[in-house]
């Protein structure tokens, strides 16, 4: 059985299997891959590579997607709660 490693996903610590790929991680998180961009240690990955890139101890993964936006949030609005998509 593969050992457990610690990685960081969107700024949060997370355990995952030592033999997991980026694709495995996204499936575990129930994230649809057709709408996300993934950065692995600041390198943007091609979608086709998600299943070929394995994770290792200390990796930093960022998973991003489109949210509602048109203008940046005005500083004066920062106290207000805007509903954001993910």
């Amino acid at each position, binding site marked *: 059985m593969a050992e457990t490693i610690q990685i960081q996903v969107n700024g949060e610590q997370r355990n995952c299997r030592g033999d997991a790929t980026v694709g495995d991680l996204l499936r575990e998180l129930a994230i649809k891959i057709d709408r996300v961009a993934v950065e692995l240690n600041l390198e943007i990955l091609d979608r086709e590579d998600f299943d070929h890139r394995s994770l290792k101890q200390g990796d930093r993964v960022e998973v991003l997607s489109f949210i509602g936006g048109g*203008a940046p949030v005005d500083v004066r609005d920062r106290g207000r709660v805007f509903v954001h998509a993910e």
Partner: protein
Amino acid sequence: MQSDPLIIAGREFTSRLWVGTGKYKDFAETKKAIDASGADVVTVAVRRVNITDRSKENLLDYLDPKKYTILPNTAGCYNVEDAVRYARLARAAGVSDLIKLEVLGDERTLFPDTAGLIEAAKTLIKEGFIVLPYTNDDPIVAQKLVDIGCPAVMPLAAPIGSGLGIRNPYNLKIIMEMVKVPIIVDAGVGTASDAALAMELGADAVLMNTAIAGAQDPMAMAEAMKYAVFAGRLAYKAGRIPRKLYATASSPIEGML
């Protein structure tokens, strides 16, 4: 009016009103307002996926990318590196090379850092992006952006979200006369007459978010903006009469008693 498409970098758009998708109450309201506006281009931002709560819906469940052109932006980026990084992420997450490039210079005004904008645009254009830059109402900068390969420029009417309307119609007019690519007036519009004025000046399109999303009734304002942009475009194409200080009678004198 006959078909009057807007063409940018070989892409044809039917609507001259483009809208942002931020600041709405929820996705249902976002979708209703966009439908009411008739816009076929919608801007979106790129942010971290919420990995702890997967129950939240996705914006693209509501906005069919086949129906709308999804125009990602680099909103919130205050330097060249961040803007370039977000643009690359947007391309990786999406389906096209289109990017609304924002490099902001200051938090209070959200005015563009035009030097940074030009630098980021150069990098992205080299990488094959179609860069639509959010810029100041500065004709010289607008021309520089065109010179480096931007297929359209997006000068502001007033600070983002300010609702101040067209603050410098003369600069915008000079940009429209000087720059031989489509001009999309972006940011600062407050109400329908602002959008109509932008189009009457000769803008090719208007992009707005807060004016609709922040209105008491966003759906009604979206519809008002649709007609304002349409009316302004028609008036521009019709060619307005010159302004004169004194009256000119409309009825003939001949035949009077």
